[in-house]
Structure formats: C-alpha cells, structure tokens
C-alpha cells in the first residue's frame, strides 16, 4: 500500500499542548523583541563594554570547544570501545556537569582550582600562578560545563559506527592510529561536528560557573552573559535586553548554518 505524503493525521489532542510548548519557547523571545530599544541598538552594540564582552565570549567559547574536542574525542573513544572496570561509572561521571547547577559547578571548580583548593594551592606554590579571575579560568569553566555535550555526541557516533570497516583496515596493514585517523574519524565526523556545535553554544551561554569561579571583570572575565547580568544589577534593562537578543541571534545563526549542512546528512 503506498503512502500518500500530504495528509498528516494530527491527533487533535496534540494541538493544545504543542501550542503551549511553542508559547513557552517563543513568548519570552517575543517579549524581548517587543521591549528592545531599537533606536539605541547601534549605540549599545557599539559600546566598549559590549564589544569587549563579545570578543571575549567568542574567544573563550572557541578555546573551550577546542579543548573539549581534543580531550573529549579520546575520552569518548575509551567509553565507547574500551573495556576496563568502572567504565559505566566513568560514563556517569562524565555527564555530571549536565545535571549540576552551573553555580555549584563553579564552587566545585573553586574548591579544586581556587587559591586554597587542592590543585590550586599546589599550582600557586609550584608556579606562582592562580587561576581565579583570569581568562583561563573562564575557559576552564566553560570546558567543564560543555564537555559532556561533545563526549556524549561522539560516543554515540562511535557506537553506531560499523566496526567492520576498521577490521578491513587492520587486515590491510593500518596501525590503530591510522585506522582512527583515516577510517573511524571520517565515519563519525557528523557526530563530532554536531557535538562541537552544541559544545560551543553551551560554552557561549555559560554563566553560573564562570561568575563563581572566574569572577567578573571587563575584558578579562566578563563574557556576554556576565555583561548582561552586570547590566541588570546596575538597573540598565535596555542593555541587558540587547545583549540577550545578540546572544540569541548568534546562537540561531550558528545552529541554522550547521543544521542544513551537516545534521541532515547526520
């Protein structure tokens, strides 16, 4: 029996909840658009504070994503292919940043890497450097919260990959590294890319862990979300709204661009 495409029989019961879901997603956005100070848009976007925060956000999010990719892919490989005791526990631990409130994550980072933290105090006595209040701290905080996205995406892709290709490559004489580089990685590339995009978006929007661990100083640690928070605290709702719209625009642009090109082929 052939299926005719057009007539989707939508259960009537779905319409109301779907509309409600859409409202929850779109109404805040609509509110932002309605309250935005359109006449001051250029002025706000061009202001020093905003431009600095934007530059810092883009830099840190990209660095954090790079770290997540370099460290996350091997980790995902171990989780997907390795066989060692405690593997499922490790997998659970990797997802902890997903469910942890970001501020708690920030506190955890402080406890470990802060001046009086376990690793932090050693770092200070050994090298004289401390992490809090530095841009490096921002990158660390963002990596902490965003890494699970990449690891989970890549692990899923690795599990779904056909291992026989790797078997054939082995019989042809390829070393494990060559197999990974020329056979496995190209096969999971869409998963890696979508994981990296999610990772980048999460890093860009990170707030709680950043402000707790890295503090908030213009040009050094005040990323866009922190700039918006500072604006609210100062009573400058207009700047906060403009920044919110800016972040949404950046996120939508990145996601839309990549969705068409890569995720469809996924």
């Amino acid at each position, binding site marked *: 029996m052939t299926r005719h495409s057009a007539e989707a029989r939508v259960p009537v019961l779905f319409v109301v909840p779907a509309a409600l879901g859409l409202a929850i997603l779109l109404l805040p956005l609509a509110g932002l658009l309605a309250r935005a100070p359109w006449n001051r848009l250029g002025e706000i976007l061009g202001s020093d504070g905003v431009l600095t925060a934007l530059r810092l956000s883009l830099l840190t999010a990209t660095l954090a994503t790079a770290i997540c990719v370099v460290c996350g892919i091997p980790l995902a490989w171990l989780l997907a292919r390795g066989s060692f005791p405690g593997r499922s526990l490790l997998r659970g631990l990797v997802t902890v940043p997903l469910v942890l409130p970001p501020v708690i994550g920030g506190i955890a980072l402080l406890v470990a890497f802060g001046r009086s933290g376990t690793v932090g105090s050693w770092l200070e006595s050994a090298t004289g450097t401390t992490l809090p209040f530095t841009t490096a701290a921002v990158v660390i905080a963002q990596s902490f919260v965003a890494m699970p996205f990449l690891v989970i995406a890549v692990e899923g892709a690795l599990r779904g990959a*056909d291992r*026989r*290709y790797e*078997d*054939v*490559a*082995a*019989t*042809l*004489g*390829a*070393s494990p590294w*060559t197999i990974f580089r*020329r*056979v496995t990685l*190209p*096969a999971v590339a869409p998963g890696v890319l979508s994981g990296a995009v999610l990772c980048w978006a999460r890093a860009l929007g990170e707030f709680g862990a950043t402000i707790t661990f890295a503090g908030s100083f213009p040009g050094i640690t005040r990323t866009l979300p922190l700039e918006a928070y500072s604006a609210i605290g100062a009573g400058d709702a207009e700047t906060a709204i403009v920044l919110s719209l800016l972040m949404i625009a950046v996120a939508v642009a990145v996601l839309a661009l990549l969705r068409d090109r890569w995720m469809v082929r996924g």
Partner: protein
Amino acid sequence: MSLLAKVAVRRGDFELDVTLDVSAGSVISLLGPNGAGKSTLLAVLAGLLRPDAALIELDGETVIDTVTGTYVSARHRRVGLVLQDFLLFPHLSALENSAFGLRSRGVPRGTSRSVAASWLARLGVAEVADRRPRELSGGQAQRVALARALAVEPRLLLLDEPLAALDVGTRPAVRADLRRHLAEYDGCAIVVTHDPLEALVLGDRLVVLEHGRVVQEGTPEQVTRHPLTDYVARLVGLNLLRGSADGRVATVGPAAVVTLAHDAAGPVHIAFSPAAVTLSPHRPEGSARNAWAGTVADMERHGDLVRVTVDGPVPVLADITPLAVADLDLAPGVAVWASVKATEITVYPA
C-alpha cells in the same frame, strides 16, 4: 604460499574444530549452511578473532600458536579480506581505497597511487578510479574491493560470499572474471559461499563445513558425485540414501531395498539424480529394478521442470515435466510409485 590451519573456537554452545591444508596457489571453496562456522573461521584466519586453540602456519611462518603463545596481529599478517558488502571506505575514491593498504604501510603517496591504478586496470575497472563507492555498480565495487586486497600482495586471500551482493544477472560474468583473477593470484585463497555453482566454478577443492566440523572435502567432482551428507546432497541436487549393502542389494530402511548395478558390501551411500526418477500411479512394469511406493509431499518449480518431493519408506526427489504432472494428476497427498534404474545409481562406501 601455503596454509596449514588447525583451529578450535568455542562460543557458547557452538564449537568450531577444523583442520585445513591448502597448497600454494590453490583456491578452496568453503561450503556450509548458515551457522556452520565459515565466517568464524575466516575471522580467525584474518586475525580478527582470537581462537581458543589454534596452530596456523602461513607460508611457513607460524602466525598463531596457542601452545607457545605466538600471535601475529591482523595488521602484520598479510591476509587479504574481501567481504560480501565490500566495505569500501565511503569517503575515499576507488583509487584511494585501493591505495589504502600501501599508504598504511608507509609507501609514498605517488607510488601507492600508481600501483593501485595498475591493479584497478588489471581488474578492468580503471575508469572508475576517481569515483566514490556509492557511485559504483555491484560488479565494479567487487573488483575495487579485490584490487584493494590484492594491492598489498597478501599471502592468503579470504573472500566471504563475494558474489552474494550482486544481481543474479551479472553474477555469471563476474564469477568467470573472479575465477580468472584467482587463477592469476599466486597465494592461497579461500572462498566462502553457499552457492554450489559458485563453489564448483571458483574452487580447486571443496571443503564442506557443518556444525563447526569438516564433513567432506575433495575435488568438485568427488564431492558432487559422492556427497556424504544430506546438506551436500541437496546442494548438488542429488538424492542421497544411506544403507547397508550385501551383494547387489542394499537395505536402506525397514522394508526398503535398493537394487544396485554392481556388487557392494557394508555401509554405503547411494546417490542418484532427481532427473533419473520416474513417477507413475501404479507399480511400474519394465526393466527398472527399483520401485517404491510413496505419497507426494510437495511440488515446486525447478527451472523448466517440477521437483516433486515424495515421502515414504524411501524418500526421494523427482524432477518431472509439468505435462507429466498434469497427466498424472499429481497433488500433495496423492499416492505414487517412484522408480529408478539401477544403472543410474552411484554407490560408494560411507
């Protein structure tokens, strides 16, 4: 480049215990029903599965010896693998696929590509060198997969159902080509298949695997003329009975005897082609010495003929024309007599 392999693998209930001796340059057709262990055996030979106990010597080099602990990994074994789905790397062109093995061994890019190109030309697919696997036809993909395996000059070539993924129409030509290439290849080759024609065309020797054990091996003629198991008999399209002979008569079951054309003694296999069986509604008169009563169990088209399965004390398959089916008014449940001339029967010791 010879192969001597004694392999034992245990997986749950399944046990594989096989000894293979392949002389240099010959092609073995490995036949068997699903689950017989053919793919398991190939995996062990290729280095993709660790056996429980094995001694494998390839071209004089001990590749696996579980007693001494020797184990050469797949990477260093120089065993070529061509699988049913071909598994060409989808993001590489045909040429890059074929050059993959050489590049992995450190051969510079230029040399690898030219060697690969010559292999593609030798297999008759030079023109698809720059195409991606998804743009190739089944036959082209198979040849590229073969080129990829041969480009690194393996000592042993393993082919797992090499023609199964092809259209029935293209199979004969590709099969003939493959026969030619295997003849030119000077290492040992093992072709796994469950198509008897493929096995007979491609192999110098046949090895039949059932339930993890070798049940018969020999030249194609030996195996087809003298099948030792039901599976092989069905495969080559023969009726096979087992019985005990005493002179010109063999007993194959209670109240079931077969008259032979020559004397024989002791446990015997009795084989005759379905085409040699005649069906009639009553006990036939005439020179045929063997006639057995039975009931039609099943009928199925078999080429231009109809293959009738007859149940009874002597169960047989009979190939008769559709006209005869209509004349005799055959249908499942109808009683018939099956008869075979003694001269059409082959008898050999069990």
